[in-house]
């Protein structure tokens, strides 16, 4: 009973889920996550980072359960789950809420990146021009379909490897005694830090939307977990290095610790590595933005079948541009990011378990599919 089966020529191999998840997870939080984490648990922030990352494995298990259960009923993505379980109207409203959530999420993501560009390199950068150009690029990628998006993800993963490797140059400036004494914080402050670490691991839930596009999903499972572990490893390294590199007093004042320690890496003729890296980080932004635009435009297409995805995409990109313009200063960016990290937390850690519960109840009430 495979309704709306995705044509195999549009599908990605099972290993793509590794790149898709790993790259969507590493986002704008990469620049700044050390500071909110160490606010509550100082030198033990890396423990919070570890716990947060491990909990994302749990969420991934829930998501995969949800999707595998759904597989029997037809297309396994969040939009179909909504309409199947809650009916056309309530499901439609939930779909709409999801669409709006991801649309704003992506727009704020884009705007946060622009903020960093403006603060660090180009204070005169026009938001409108940048977003417009960027949206053209996204349109080009999304119109290419899921396979093009997957390709961009692969490229992004490969391009980012030198960036992570390069942080090794900050090691000579590190004071590893900063990590001592180990485990000096109580569960309360640690849990607060874990809560703030959740938002850096967000992004993996997007598999809820592109799951039907993965060929042999049962083989993709292990790659999903590998991706989460890889992200965990990267964040843990950066967190430990950040704690060792900055004193706690300095950390409190530093808004973007990652960029600041790039600042201390210099090569002859290559003095400001931080600036090169910031511009280079556009490769972390591009795939995630393209995927979000794809998800949202596809969501619009599925919810309102009269609208074709192409036109939905134009609307989505217009919203990106408008939202990026509305959020006019750094204060608003911070507020919006705080809001979305809380919403993301609710989505992953509250809504998804609830959805799994609903799915189970529906299965008990209506019985197995024929």
């Amino acid at each position, binding site marked *: 009973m495979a309704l709306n089966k995705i044509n195999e020529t549009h599908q990605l191999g099972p290993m793509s889920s590794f790149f898709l998840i790993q790259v969507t997870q590493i986002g704008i939080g990469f620049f700044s996550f050390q500071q909110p984490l160490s606010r509550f648990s100082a030198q033990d922030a890396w423990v919070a980072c570890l716990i947060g990352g491990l909990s994302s494995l749990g969420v991934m298990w829930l998501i995969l359960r949800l999707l595998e259960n759904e597989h029997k009923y037809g297309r396994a993505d969040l939009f179909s789950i909504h309409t199947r379980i809650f009916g056309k109207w309530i499901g439609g409203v939930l779909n709409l809420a999801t669409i709006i959530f991801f649309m704003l999420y992506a727009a704020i993501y884009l705007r946060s990146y622009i903020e960093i560009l403006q603060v660090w390199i180009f204070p005169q950068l026009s938001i409108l021009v940048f977003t417009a150009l960027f949206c053209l690029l996204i349109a080009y990628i999304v119109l290419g379909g899921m396979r093009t998006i997957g390709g961009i993800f692969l490229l992004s993963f490969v391009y980012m490897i030198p960036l992570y490797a390069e942080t090794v140059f900050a090691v000579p400036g590190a004071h590893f005694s900063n990590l001592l004494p180990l485990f000096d914080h109580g569960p309360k402050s640690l849990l607060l830090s874990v809560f703030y670490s959740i938002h850096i691991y967000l992004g993996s839930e997007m598999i809820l939307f592109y799951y039907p596009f993965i060929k042999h999903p049962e083989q993709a499972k292990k790659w999903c977990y590998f991706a989460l572990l890889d992200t965990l490893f990267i964040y843990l390294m950066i967190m430990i290095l950040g704690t060792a590199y900055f*004193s706690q007093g*300095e950390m409190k004042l530093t808004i973007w610790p990652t960029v600041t320690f790039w600042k201390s890496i210099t090569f002859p003729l290559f003095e400001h590595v931080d600036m090169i890296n910031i511009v280079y980080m556009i490769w972390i932004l591009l795939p995630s933005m393209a995927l979000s635009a794809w998800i949202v435009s596809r969501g619009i297409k599925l919810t309102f079948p009269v609208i074709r995805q192409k036109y939905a995409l134009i609307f989505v990109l217009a919203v990106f541009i408008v939202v990026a313009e509305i959020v006019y200063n750094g204060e608003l960016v911070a507020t919006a990011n705080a809001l979305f990290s809380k919403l993301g937390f609710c989505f992953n850690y509250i809504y998804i378990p609830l959805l799994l519960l609903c799915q189970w109840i529906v299965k008990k009430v209506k019985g197995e599919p024929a």
Partner: protein
Amino acid sequence: MRIKILLLCLFLLLLTGCLPSNIIDDILMVEAEGYDYLGKGQIMGTATMPNYVESGNPGSQGAGLPSTAAMMRYISGVTYDGKSLVDKFQPEGQRQLKIGKIRVMLFDDKLARHGLSKQLDFRNRDPDTPRDLTLAVVEGSTREMLTAADYQTQIPVSRYIQDLIQQNSQQNYPDSDLAQILYSYYGEYMDAFMPIIQKQGDHLALVGVAAFKKDKYVMKIDGDDVFVFKMLFQPFDQGVYDYEFARGKHIALRNVHTSASFKVRNGNSSSPDIYARVKISAQVRQAFPGSISKKNADHITKLLNRHLEWEARQLVHRFQTYRVDPLGLGNTVRSFTYRFDGHSWPDRYPHARFHCRVNVNIVQTGISQ
């Protein structure tokens, strides 16, 4: 379709030149800044920039710029403490002044004693400032140091100063770039320090290390004590220590490797015990004739151990009386103490007991007996 692509290309063309560009020949790159304190919150600021105008090509007639077409070399003027010199001097700048590659920042000792909080805050806030920027305290006038034309070397003075400090921080002097200074200035339970330089006739010299309490320079570590300071502060491998074991009789050691490890007991008591163990592997550079050979190396080593331990204790004792902590001993105590009581640390620090064991290992005594 073709028209669409054409439009797209046009769009891209229109976008070029939206942002100001910084071409290296068309800007004045500030490489050194000097601040002299005048009192009442006023400072005399000096900025220097190197000259990138190419000299006239002697082989061709009139091609290239004439060698006299040098750009301005320095600007100085009076402003308030904490003002960005680049902004201050822009009206006097021949071209746009840029701070992105600043190498050296100098403060005269009056300003250092007055306090550097505004300067350090500004440098921590500015995204353009490189973190390997060299900061130093100058004995005398920074303006004179930066604008003097009587140096032996022809290279810009900013590079001269940076070379001097950077190569010495491979040897006897401790690392003190902006990253290190901000680390200890903003960090808890530790204090910053900077090297002190002085213009001595036609050259520059490092004469010691200035220890800061918060943002104020309060104590000078003399050039002779810098080795002892560095051996407690960080591992290093190219220092030279001169030991006068009897009147007029010297032994100089070049250390091959030095490392210090710390232990702390009773970190939350009113007088914590700090144990430092220093291991030095060294080779003899020079020795008083007949004073050292493979046989009696042990004897000298023992004397040297006792001497260095004594010096280290004296140094820490001086820090404690001045209540400065450039070694970051407070941070060491914190890292060894669960539930560290940070509030009372400033009161407990002068009473901390510092124990030091030095173990010198002379690996070789030269190529002659």
